[in-house]
C-alpha cells in the first residue's frame, strides 16, 4: 500500500493527478484525508527543496486591488497592496508556514521573565533601497507612526497595549502595560513594514529592505518590480529578476489568465470551478487550510439573541457538513462555534464537535420560549462568497426544526459599514489572526472595537489576560481551551466553516508551499518562488 501511495504522491507532483483525486484514492486505501494531505505536504516540501533558479519575471494575477490603492503600509487592507508590501519591504519578524517566528529585521528577541519587556536585537548593515542603512531608530520611528493616536493605521489596535518604546544601542525595546507572551506575533503584522525614518515624511514611497524595488505603480492595474542587487537575503528570497502583480478582480478573467499562461499564480479560485481547473494539464490548484472563517454573528445583548437557548437552537440547526460541501465544495473544514481551529499553535482538539441535530434544535427552541416571530438574518455576498446560498441552506434546516428564520438580502455596497457590527444578526467573515490571543483580543474582549457579537464577560477578559502573561504553553493551552468552550456554549458566534485559501499555480512555478497564514503563500509567492523555465 505504501508503495502505491508513494507512486500517487509523485503523480500529483507531476501534475498527472489532482490533490482531491489523491485524497479520494488514499481514502479508498484506508488513509484519512488529514493524513493524505500531510503526505502531500511533505512531498511538496521535498519538492520545494529543489535548487531555486534565478531569472525571469514572475507574474501574479490577484484579486483585491483597486485604483484607490497606495503603497503606504498603514493603509494596506487588501491582497494586491499586500503582495506589493512584501515585494519591497520587510517586518521585524514573520510567522512561517509552521506557525513559528522567523527573524527578519530583528535577529533575536528576548522577553523579560514577566513578559512585560521585550528586546528586539536589530540586524546591522542592511540597506534600504534608497542606499541608507536600516537602524534601530528607523524601527522605533516606524512603530511610533503606527501607534500614534492620530494615525489611521490598521495596526493601531495592535499597538494599544504598549506603554513605551526606546532604542538602546542595537536593540529596540518595547515595554508593555500588561504582559503579553505573544508580542512577537503582533510585531509580525504586515502593516509594520520597516521604513526609513518610519515613513514619517513619505509613507507611500515604497522604500524598504525587501528584495525588489517598485518600478511601475499603476493602482488597480499593475505593479512592476525589479530585483535589487544589494538585497541582504538573496540566498532565500527574490529569485526572479522582476515581479509583476497584475490586478485581476474578475474571477473568470483571473482563471482564464492562468490557463492561457498570462500569469503564474492566481488567488481566490472560486471553489465551484476549482476541481475543473485542477484538471488542466499545465497547472494545479493549491489549497491550504487557513484560519479564515465564514460566520453568522448575533448580538447577544439584543433580543431575541440575548437568550442563550435560542442561540443554541440556531447552532444545532445549522448543517455544517452540508455548508462545507455545497458552499466551499470541500475546500474547507467544519467549525465548532469558536473562532479557533487546528491552524493555531495552542488549539485544543479535544473540545467536542457540535453536531447537526434537529431534535436538539427543537428542544432548545422550545426552551427559549421565543414567540415565533421571524428571526431576521441579514446577508449579502459581500460578507463572504456564497453567503446568500449559505443563508438559504441555514434557513431550510432551521425551518425543519421549527425555527422561523428569515433572510433579508442586503447590498454588497456598504455592507461593512451599514450591516456588519450594526445589525443584530448577519453574515460575516473573519480572516483569523496568527495567534489565539490576537483573535480574541480583536473581537471578543469586552472593550474590543470589533466585538461584533457583543461578547462582554469579565471572567473571559480575565482569562485572556492571564493567558497573555503565561509563558508556560501547557497552562496557556488549558486557559484557551476553557475560553473556547465558553464561547462555543454561550457566544453569539455561529461558526459553521473555516475556508481554505484556494490558489491556482502554474507548474512552471517552483518552491510553492501552502501557507496557512494567508493566500498566495501569505502573499509572498512572488518573493519566495522561482521560475523553472528561467
Amino acid at each position, binding site marked *: 500500500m505504501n508503495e502505491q501511495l508513494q507512486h500517487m504522491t509523485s503523480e500529483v507532483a507531476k501534475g498527472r493527478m489532482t490533490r482531491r483525486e489523491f485524497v479520494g484514492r488514499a481514502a479508498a486505501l484506508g488513509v484519512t484525508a488529514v493524513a493524505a494531505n500531510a503526505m502531500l505536504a511533505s512531498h511538496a516540501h521535498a519538492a520545494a527543496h529543489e535548487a531555486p533558479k534565478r531569472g525571469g519575471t514572475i507574474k501574479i*494575477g490577484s484579486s483585491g486591488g*483597486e*485604483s*484607490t*490603492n*497606495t503603497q503606504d503600509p498603514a*493603509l494596506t*487592507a*487588501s491582497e494586491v497592496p499586500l503582495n506589493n508590501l512584501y515585494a519591497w519591504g520587510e517586518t521585524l519578524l514573520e510567522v512561517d508556514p509552521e506557525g513559528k517566528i522567523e527573524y527578519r529585521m530583528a535577529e533575536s528577541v528576548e522577553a523579560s521573565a514577566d513578559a512585560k519587556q521585550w528586546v528586539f536585537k536589530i540586524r546591522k548593515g542592511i540597506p534600504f533601497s534608497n542606499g541608507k542603512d536600516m537602524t534601530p531608530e528607523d524601527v522605533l520611528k516606524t512603530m511610533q507612526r503606527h501607534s500614534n*493616536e*492620530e*494615525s*489611521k*493605521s*490598521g495596526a*493601531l*489596535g495592535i499597538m494599544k497595549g504598549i506603554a513605551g518604546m526606546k532604542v538602546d544601542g542595537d536593540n529596540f525595546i518595547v515595554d508593555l502595560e500588561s504582559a503579553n507572551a505573544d508580542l512577537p506575533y503582533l510585531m509580525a503584522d504586515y502593516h509594520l513594514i520597516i521604513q526609513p525614518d518610519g515613513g514619517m515624511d513619505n509613507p*507611500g514611497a515604497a522604500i524598504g529592505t525587501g528584495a525588489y524595488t517598485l518600478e*511601475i505603480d*499603476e*493602482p*488597480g*492595474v*499593475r505593479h512592476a518590480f525589479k530585483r535589487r542587487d544589494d538585497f541582504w537575503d538573496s540566498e532565500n528570497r527574490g529569485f526572479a529578476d522582476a515581479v509583476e502583480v*497584475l*490586478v*485581476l*478582480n*474578475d474571477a*473568470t*478573467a*483571473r482563471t*482564464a*489568465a492562468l*490557463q*492561457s499562461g*498570462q500569469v503564474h499564480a492566481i488567488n481566490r479560485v472560486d471553489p465551484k470551478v476549482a476541481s475543473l481547473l485542477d484538471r488542466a494539464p499545465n497547472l494545479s490548484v493549491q489549497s491550504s487550510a487557513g484560519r479564515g472563517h465564514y460566520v453568522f454573528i448575533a448580538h447577544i445583548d439584543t433580543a431575541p439573541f440575548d437568550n442563550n437557548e435560542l442561540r443554541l437552537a440556531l447552532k444545532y440547526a445549522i448543517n455544517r457538513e452540508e455548508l462545507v460541501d455545497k458552499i466551499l465544495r470541500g475546500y474547507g473544514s467544519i467549525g465548532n462555534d469558536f473562532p479557533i481551529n487546528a491552524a493555531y499553535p495552542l488549539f485544543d482538539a479535544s473540545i467536542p464537535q457540535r453536531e447537526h441535530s434537529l431534535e436538539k434544535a427543537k428542544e432548545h427552541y422550545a426552551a427559549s420560549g421565543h414567540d415565533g416571530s421571524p428571526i431576521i438574518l441579514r446577508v449579502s455576498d459581500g460578507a463572504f462568497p456564497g453567503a446568500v446560498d449559505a443563508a438559504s441552506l441555514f434557513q431550510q434546516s432551521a425551518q425543519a426544526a421549527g425555527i422561523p428564520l428569515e433572510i433579508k438580502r442586503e447590498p454588497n*455596497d*456598504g455592507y*461593512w*459599514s*451599514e450591516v*456588519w457590527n450594526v445589525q443584530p444578526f448577519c453574515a460575516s*467573515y473573519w480572516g483569523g489572526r496568527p495567534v489565539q490571543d490576537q483573535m480574541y483580543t480583536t473581537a471578543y474582549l469586552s472593550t474590543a*472595537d*470589533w466585538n461584533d457579537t457583543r461578547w462582554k464577560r469579565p471572567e473571559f477578559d480575565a482569562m485572556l489576560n492571564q493567558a497573555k502573561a503565561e509563558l508556560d504553553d501547557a497552562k496557556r493551552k488549558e486557559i484557551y481551551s476553557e475560553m473556547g468552550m465558553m464561547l462555543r456554549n454561550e457566544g453569539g458566534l455561529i461558526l459553521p466553516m473555516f475556508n481554505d485559501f484556494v490558489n491556482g499555480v502554474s507548474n512552471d512555478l517552483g518552491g510553492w508551499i501552502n501557507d496557512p497564514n494567508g493566500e498566495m503563500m501569505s502573499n509572498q509567492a512572488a518573493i519566495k518562488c522561482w521560475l523553472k523555465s528561467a
Partner: protein
Amino acid sequence: MHPVLKLITQRVALGVVLLFAASVLIFVGTTILPGDVAQSILGQSATPQSLANLRAELGLNDPPVARYFAWLGDVLQGDLGTALTNGRDIAESLGGRLKNTMFLAFWAAVISVPLAIFLGLLAVRFRDRWPDKLISAITLTSISIPEFLIGYVLMFFVGVKLGWAPSAALINDTMSLGQKLNTIALPVAVLTLVVLAHMMRMTRAAILNVMQSAYIETAELKGLSIFEVIRRHAFPNAIAPIVNVVMLNLAYLVVGVVVIEVVFTYPGMGQYLVDHVSKRDVPVVQACGLIFAAVYIVLNMIADIVSILANPRLRHPK
C-alpha cells in the same frame, strides 16, 4: 444672425446647461450612497479612532453643499483635485485611463461604424432576401446576448483554447501598437458585436424610409441601377438619422463599456469609476461622471448640428 448659427448657438448653450445639471445629479447621487469614504478606505479594519482621524483629514465634516461648490469652483479653473483615497492627482490618473478608453472606443468604432453602414446598405439592396435576413439574424442575436457572456465565451475559446489573443486586456504604455492591438482584440470584438446591430438596423431603416420617396421612384424610372440610387439619392438624405445613431453608439463605446472593462480587466475609465464608487471617493466619481456626461452631451450635440447642417431648408433660408 443666420438661422443656422442661431440654432447651433442655442444647441451649445443647452449642452452647457445639461452638463451643469448632470454635475448636480452626480453629486446628489454620490452623497446619498450609504457609508462614507473613510469607512470604505478602512473597511472591516476600521476603529472609531482611526475613522474619526481619517474623516477630519479628508474634510468630510463640512456640509455637502459647501463641498460641492468648492469642487465646482476648482473644476471651472481646470483643477479636478486629488483622490481622497490615495491622494493622487485625479486629472493625471484620469488622463491615462481616458486615453485607454478612447483607444478601445476608437478601434471598436473604426471597425463597427463602416461595417454597420456597409451591412445596412447591403441589407437594403437585398431587402427581404436571404442576405438581409442573415445579417439581421446575426446582428440581432449578438445584441440579445448579454455582453459579459459574449466576453466570457470569446475569452474561453479565443483566449484560452486557441491562444490567439490574451484573455486579460492588460494594456500598457511600453507596448508597441501591434501588441496593443493584439491585447485589445477580444474587447474590441465584443464591443463591435454589441453596437453593430443597432447602427446597422438604423441605417437600413433610414434608407428604406427614403426609398419610399417619389424622387427615388423618378431615379429608378430614369434607369439608374439600385446601387446608384442608394449611393447618390437615398444615402445622402439618410445621413442625419444615421449620424444620430452612430454618435449615440460612439457615446456608448466611451461611457457604456464599464462591464467590458471589468470583464477583461481593461485599465480604462469604467474600471476606475467602479473602484472609486465602491470606495465613496466622491471627487473622482464626480470627475468621471462629468467626463462621461460631457462625452454624451458633446457627441449628441455634434449629431444635432450635423442634422441641422444636413437640412437644406435651414442652409438656404428664404
